[in-house]
Each structure stands twice: as structure tokens, then as C-alpha cells.
């Protein structure tokens, strides 16, 4: 097992129980095999058991692929541990491959000596051909490097269900439960959470519910009774911060964060969006929450979505819009309008691999410069980026705090990895969260549409329905104070600088960047967004090996944390891993004239810890 450090041997009947501190399992099968479900259930159970967890679903391209084909493979990786963990693990310790295509597309990630469980029933000629295998890999010795377990999962599953009253197809759909049961046994997890879930999900459909339960148990008992598996394992609880936890994906966390901001501000949330992978789930989530007064508007396109959000903000709601890269491109012009009219607005962008349609289900950090500059003219906006799935909650609230306080569009820059990945979330106490004051203008005597708060430079939020505050806004340049249309050269220059200065002022109330490790000297590994987990882990490991390396991560991308320049100046070398060709690195080099080095990959996947560790070794020997 890759990350097993302490292993304690115990005897339980004829089989051994080995204690591990971290295990990573990857379930892989056809899109129709229910792998996401098996993975999610494993995650929940482990979370409830008290492990720290991290997951990474690897969903095939948007379109459905033929059954058994290579592009049709769907995977779900879950890492669970007795320690704090920050990533779903580089490589799985265990690979469950439900068919030849799943084996083919995943085996290269399994390290030598890794545990490989295959559903041998599916390794027939048809499926081997679909996966472009010339010979059966189960027989040709190519799997020699792994601890291979051939389990006739389909046969065993069907046998267990022969009296279930289900059709053959229905029975076959339960085999993910069989595989899950086997894994539960192998890692000493109880079945209760999943049994409970089955009951809830299929309750009404008795036959199906019972069959799923039977399959789950059959898998479990198969592990317990068969001689094949000599060992099973135990991963103790992690020492997590005490409190109430749930598992959450980044998109779910963002949705909850947005609703929370609405509650904190006492203003309704309005979500204008057009479906797009991987952001659509936020629409699905928010659409469920009508009882919070949330209005979701599925617009005809991304432009209408942001237009509606701007209209809602003009009316005093929290106008939110969400999308992914190509959709952000379409919103460019309207974001410029929001900059000019200086209304609160949050634009969520769940980045995916580009350019153009790119690889919609894959992750990337390559929309940063689009978020910074993708509009005509000098058009500054604030940008925040969550570091982890659960941090999406915090940064969603933070985005709204900034948007409302500074009357500005804020881009919330998530990515597919955060949005679809999950981790345990320490459920916050909402009463402890600071209120957000919408601070509407009400005084008709003193009202000036473009007068500014001297501290924040924010202009008044004067919403329709307020007597005496009738005024006109728009995309033409505004005269200072009055907000009338102005072509005066000096006024334009002033307003351009005021808008820039306002965004700079956001830096007055955002936190300094905190360095983990040495406070100066050696190598600083700097990150933003979803690289947090890998960087933290890689730096911890390198430090454990005695290397002089520190880590820092920031979540406010524009403006930057106020101390960032000072921090950069304190280190001999700075390394910035990014899942792009060096976008933030460019901004920092320009601003601080520091020769930051880049570690860049743009392959649609998150960094592995090893990739960052190797680069650290290369730079600090």
C-alpha cells in the first residue's frame, strides 16, 4: 500500500488485519456500471467512520460512449486516512476494474505491487476487442507486477440474486454493490451507512432495494469467507477538528455558501445561469432551495444569464451567475457593464480544460487571465479562488462580502477538480458568521449616484422602490459624483483610476498570506486555487526529508494579499505550480519583478504530489 507507514498485524480468524494510515481506492468500470455510486458510498462510510477523506471522480467525456468502450470508462478515486489529507492520492493502492476497458485506461496508474481486483467475467472476447486488447491480459502475464485478484463478480452477483425476482439486466446493475461490499470487507468498514442509503433510495421499489442489499452483503461475505484474500485492513480514525461533518463537493459547498451569503445579507439570492459542465450542478442545487427564497433563472444563454443577474442586483437581490470557461467568454461584455455601473455581482467560473470546447469534463486553471482581463478597456474586478472543495463554501461567502461592500463584480474562480471532488466539511455555525450589510441608500436629500464611501470607494446601492432616489445608470462613462453621462477627458481618466483604486482597496480587509514552514530562506512553493492539497502535502513530505522548503497559498487573486510582495522577497527561490502555462506567475513577475519559476502542466488533471515533490527535489537538491 503506497502510503502505509505503520502496519500492525492482528489475527481475526484465519485472516490477517493490517493497520494502515492511508489507502486510496479507485473504482473503474463502464459508465453504466455505477462506479460513481460505489465510490460515493465508500466515501460516506469512511467519513462516518472518522477517516479524513478526499475524492476525485473521473467522468468520461460529456457524450455517452458505447458500453465497454475505452471512452466509456468512468472512475472514482477515494483516499481515506487516519491523518489529515489534502488530495485524493496520486496513485491508487487498489484498483477495482469492472471490465477490460477500465483495466486498460487505469492500470498505468497502479504502482507495482498494487492490489488489482478485476471482474473476470467481463474479460470475454467482445469486451477485450472493444478495449483493443489483442490477448487477455489476465492470462498473458502482463499483470505480473500487481497483486491480481480475479473475481467472477457478475457470476457471484447473479447467483446471489437468482431469487430476487429481478430481470437479468436489473440484477446486473447491482454488481457495483457486490464490488463495494468486497471493498468494505477488505477495509473493515461497516455496511450500515450504505444499507440505510439503499433503503432510502429504493425504498418504494422493494425488489430492487432488497437485491442491492443482498449484493452488497454478498460482496462482503465473499471477502470474509473466501480464501483468496489473505489480509484485510484497518485504517484508524483521523484526528480531525471536532465537530459535525458531512461530505461535500465543491459545487455543493459553493451553492451553500451563496445561500449563506444571502441569509447573512438579508437579501434574496437570484441565480441566472445557462447549463454547462462542470458548473451545472450549482444550478441543480440552487433550484432545490426555493424555500430559501432563492430564484433560479435558466436563461437562454450565458449573456442573458448575467444580464438577469445584473438586473436582479440592480433591484437589490444578490445577483449571481455561474458558468465555465466558454460561458465566461460570452459574459465578457456584460461584466464590463457591471464594472461601469458598480453593482454587487458574483460570477462563478468553474474552470475546465480549454481552449474552446476543449475537454469539458477535465480540470484546468487556465481562465485566470480571462478573469483578470477578458473585457474591453480598463475593467478591473475582484477575484477569489477556493483552495479545496469545502473551501468553496467560505470563498462563496467571501465573494459576496467583497461584492456588496465594494459594489463590484467579483469572480469566484473554482475548477472542475474542486467542483466535482469532495471532502469532509466541518459544518459551520452560521450564527458565528459575520452579517453582511447591504447598506442601501435611502436618503433622497444627500443621494448622489456616484458619490463614494471614502474608505472603500464604493458608490451607493440605490434600489428601485426607494422614493426620491430615481436615477439612471449605464455603460457610458459616468461623471464623478453625479453619474451623468460624461465625455470629459479629465473625468474619464479620473474614473478609470478610481475604479482601479477601488479594487486595490479590497486589499485593506483581506488576510495576509501565511507561510507554512520557514518564514524565510530556501524555496517557497506558492499556489492558488485547487493546487493547495498537493502543494501542502508535497512540501510536508519534503520538509520531513529535511529540505528547506515552505509553502504558501492565497485565495484572493485580485487584489493580492497585502504582504505577498514582502513574502516573495524573503526566499531564495520561488516555485509556482499551476495547471496552466504560468498565468499567475506572469502577474506576479510583472508586479514584483521576482524570477518565479513555474511548474506547469495542462493535461486536464490535477498535479500529483510526486510531480511537485520531484520539482522541489530538483530545485533544492
Amino acid at each position: 500500500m503506497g502510503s502505509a507507514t505503520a502496519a500492525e498485524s492482528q489475527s481475526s480468524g484465519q485472516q490477517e488485519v493490517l493497520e494502515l494510515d492511508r489507502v486510496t481506492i479507485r473504482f473503474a468500470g463502464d459508465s453504466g456500471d455505477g462506479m460513481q455510486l460505489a465510490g460515493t458510498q465508500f466515501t460516506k462510510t469512511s467519513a462516518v467512520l472518522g477517516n479524513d477523506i478526499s475524492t476525485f471522480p473521473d467522468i468520461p467525456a460529456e457524450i455517452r460512449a458505447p458500453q465497454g468502450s475505452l471512452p466509456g470508462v468512468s472512475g472514482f478515486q477515494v483516499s481515506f486516512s487516519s491523518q489529515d489529507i489534502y488530495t485524493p492520492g496520486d496513485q491508487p493502492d487498489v484498483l477495482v476494474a469492472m471490465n477490460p476497458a477500465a483495466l486498460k485506461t487505469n492500470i498505468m496508474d497502479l504502482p507495482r505491487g498494487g492490489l488489482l481486483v478485476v471482474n473476470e467475467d467481463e474479460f470475454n472476447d467482445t469486451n477485450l476487442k472493444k478495449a483493443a486488447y489483442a490477448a487477455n491480459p489476465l492470462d498473458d502475464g502482463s499483470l505480473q507486477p500487481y497483486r491480481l485478484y480475479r473475481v467472477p463478480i457478475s457470476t457471484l452477483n447473479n447467483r446471489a440474486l437468482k431469487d430476487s425476482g429481478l430481470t437479468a439486466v436489473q440484477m446486473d446493475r447491482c454488481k457495483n454493490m457486490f464490488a463495494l461490499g468486497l471493498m468494505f470487507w477488505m477495509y473493515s468498514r461497516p455496511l450500515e451507512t450504505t444499507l440505510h442509503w439503499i433503503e432510502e433510495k429504493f425504498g418504494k421499489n422493494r425488489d430492487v432495494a432488497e437485491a442491492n442489499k443482498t449484493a452488497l452483503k454478498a460482496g462482503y461475505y465473499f471477502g470474509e469467507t473466501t480464501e483468496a484474500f489473505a489480509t484485510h485492513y484497518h485504517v484508524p480514525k483521523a484526528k480531525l477538528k471536532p465537530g459535525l461533518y458531512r461530505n461535500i463537493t465543491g459545487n455543493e459547498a459553493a451553492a451553500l455558501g451563496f445561500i449563506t451569503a444571502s441569509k447573512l445579507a438579508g437579501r434574496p439570492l437570484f441565480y441566472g445561469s445557462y447549463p454547462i459542465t462542470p458548473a451545472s450542478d450549482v444550478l441543480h442545487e440552487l433550484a432545490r432551495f426555493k424555500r430559501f427564497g432563492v430564484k433560479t433563472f435558466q436563461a437562454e444563454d450565458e449573456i442573458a444569464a448575467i444580464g438577469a443577474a445584473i438586473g436582479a442586483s440592480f433591484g437589490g437581490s444578490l445577483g449571481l451567475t455561474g458558468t465555465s470557461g466558454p460561458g465566461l467568454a460570452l459574459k465578457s461584455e456584460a461584466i464590463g457593464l457591471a464594472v461601469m455601473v458598480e453593482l454587487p455581482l458574483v460570477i462563478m467560473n468553474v474552470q475546465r480544460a480549454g481552449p474552446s470546447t476543449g475537454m469539458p469534463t477535465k480540470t484546468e486553471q487556465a481562465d485566470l487571465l480571462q478573469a483578470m482581463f477578458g473585457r474591453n478597456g480598463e475593467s478591473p474586478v475582484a477575484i477569489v479562488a477556493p483552495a479545496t472543495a469545502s473551501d468553496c463554501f467560505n470563498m462563496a461567502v467571501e465573494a459576496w462580502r467583497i461584492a456588496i461592500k465594494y459594489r463590484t463584480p467579483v469572480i469566484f474562480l473554482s475548477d472542475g477538480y474542486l467542483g466535482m471532488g469532495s471532502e469532509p466539511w466541518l459544518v459551520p455555525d452560521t450564527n458565528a458568521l459575520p452579517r453582511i450589510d447591504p447598506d442601501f441608500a435611502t436618503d433622497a436629500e444627500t443621494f448622489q449616484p456616484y458619490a463614494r464611501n471614502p474608505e472603500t470607494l464604493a458608490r451607493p446601492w440605490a434600489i428601485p422602490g426607494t422614493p426620491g432616489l430615481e436615477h439612471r445608470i449605464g455603460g457610458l462613462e459616468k461623471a464623478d459624483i453625479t453619474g451623468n453621462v460624461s465625455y470629459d477627458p479629465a473625468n474619464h481618466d479620473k474614473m478609470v483610476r478610481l475604479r482601479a483604486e477601488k479594487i486595490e482597496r479590497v486589499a485593506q480587509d483581506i488576510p495576509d498570506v501565511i507561510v507554512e514552514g520557514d518564514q524565510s530562506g530556501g524555496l517557497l512553493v506558492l499556489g492558488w486555487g485547487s493546487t493547495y492539497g498537493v502543494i501542502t502535502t508535497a512540501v510536508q513530505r519534503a520538509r520531513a526529508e529535511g529540505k528547506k522548503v515552505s509553502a504558501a497559498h492565497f485565495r484572493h487573486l485580485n487584489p493580492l494579499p497585502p504582504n505577498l510582495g514582502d513574502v516573495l522577497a524573503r526566499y531564495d527561490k520561488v516555485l509556482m505550480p499551476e495547471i496552466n502555462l504560468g498565468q499567475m506567475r506572469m502577474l506576479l513577475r510583472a508586479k514584483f519583478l521576482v524570477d518565479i519559476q513555474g511548474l506547469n502542466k495542462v493535461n486536464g488533471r490535477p498535479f500529483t504530489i510526486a510531480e511537485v515533490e520531484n520539482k522541489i527535489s530538483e530545485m533544492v537538491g
Partner: protein
Amino acid sequence: MVTAQRNASEIPVLTRKDFVTDQEVRWCPGCGDYSILAQTQKVMPDLGVAKENIVFISGIGCSSRLPYYMNTFGFHSIHGRAPTIASGLKASRPELSVWVVTGDGDALSIGGNHILHVLRRNMDIQIILHNNEIYGLTKGQYSPTSELGKRTKSSPYGTIDAPLHPLSVAIGAEATFVARALDTDAQLMVQCLERAHKHRGTSFVEVYQNCNIFNDGAFKDFAAKEVRSDRTIVLEHGKPMIFGKEREKGLRFNGMRIEVVEIGVDGVTESDLLVHDEERDDPTVAFLLSRMEWPEYPVPMGVFRAVKRPTYDGLMAKQLEEVIAAEGEGELSEIFLEGDTWTVEAE
């Protein structure tokens, strides 16, 4: 709460002047937009809506400057997108009276898609389309309503794209209220604006507007005072379709076509004429009327169609109410704890 509505009784009596801003009106002298502005300002005091609850939203174009001159809340947005901003505002604040001011380019060129969708949703707003069959603000290119073959700056050899009929487009997009007015016919315009405001759902009003700089006289063949009564027909609900200086002509349905007939000639009487029914659920007759063009037919003016259909903003508010009634108001703690939770104890 600042967003609270004032009751009708609390609203002070307003006059046209209350709706005039301090901004100098900047259209070319003689532009048809002046009249549309004047009628709009005139109608406002009679709507029974407090000034602070009225919002004018426009795109870009000469016409789209109108909000600057209306002393209400106003938003001069970006080209073609006014319906989207209006939709977000109305859906989130159904109590406001929301007006969209747009041009033929703004609404039907760059903004065509939003028009389709706001109409099918039946968002309860008013859309006033200043149709001058030209791009005024950008100084004279042809628009999607310019006639085929028109020579403009961007079509020195004449256009080759057939124009859209704004009202046909609207009816094809499920419009519930469709009307047409004329810049120079103040009375009819006032009627149309009032009706538009009263209608619950999207009201789509096309106003033929003369751009005396880049497209002077575009409508004069039928709209000039001297010929108007002979070459246009004002639609009146429940009344037979009669027109002409002497009200001597009418429209009759023959086979599947409309034909112009003369009352008293060939035995035609009023009872043979089509009776206008703006409330017909089936939009086909309204569509047919939207195809009528001078010189083959008199140009129909007034309200073509006004039917009842639930509004988007109304349904949205209702849905929220129903969900809250059924499920109770949302509690954060409850959705925070959706799915399986577990507790990590302090050790």
C-alpha cells in the same frame, strides 16, 4: 424596508413634468423619438404607479437614450441586452413596473434571441420598439427591418437580406400582447402604452419612428397625415375592420386570405367584415394581420393581440410561496446537514 411599496393612496398626484429629467434631450431636431418620449412621459402619471416603482431599461441606439430623459429609475445597458436585465429585475422584484426601450437593431439584430425568450416566458414587462428601419446611432447602416434592396452606408449596392416583420416574429414567439403605433399619432400611442401597461405579461409595442437624418420618410407612404386614414386601419376589439377617410372600406376574410372590400359595393355590408378579436387564443389571425403591408393592404395599427397567460414572474413567486407553504422556510442548518453526517468528538 426601503423596497416596501407605497399604496396607491399615498402616491402623490403627478404630472408629465414629474417625469422629465434635467438632462438635455439629444436627438436630432425632428426625430420621431421626441414624440415617443413625450407620450411616454404623458402616460406615466396615469398608471397609478409610484414614480420610484417605475424602471426604464434600454440597450444601445438613439432610441435607447430615452431612459436618461425619464425621471424614474433607469438603466441604459448594452446593445441588445435590455430584455435580460429587465427579466432579472422583474423576476426578482415583481412589484415594479418595468419598461424596455429598444430599437430595430437593438431588439431584432443583436437582441433577437432575448426577445424570443422574454416573450415565450411572458415576463410581465413592456417592450417599446422604436422601429426606424435603420441604425441611427451608428450613422446609417441598414437594419433587419430595412426593406430589401435599400442602399445605405453599408449596402451601397442595395441590401440582399429580406427584412423581418417584428410583429410576426413576436407572434411566432408566443407573444401575448402585440401592438403597433406611429410616432406622429400621439393619441393612438398613448392608448397602446396604457394598454401595454395594463396587460399582464410581455407587451410588445412596435412604434414606427421616423429617423429624419438617415431614413427620412420611411413610413410616409401610408403614415402621412393626408393618406393615413386610407392606408392604415386601426384595430378595435369587437369592432368590424373598417377604414378609409369615409370609413368606406373594410376587410373581409375570403377563403384563407384577407381582402379589401368597399362597403356598399357588390352588396358588401358591415356584417361581412372581419370583426377584430384581440383575445383569440389562436394567434393565427394576429399573425395574418402582421403580414399586411401597404400597398396591398392597409397597415394595421393598434392592439393586434392581447391574451391571458400566466407570467413568468407570477409563476415564480407562486412556486416559491407554494414550496415554502409545503416545506417551510429554509433553515441553513438543515441543508448543511443534508446527506450523511458524522461527528468527530474532541479527544
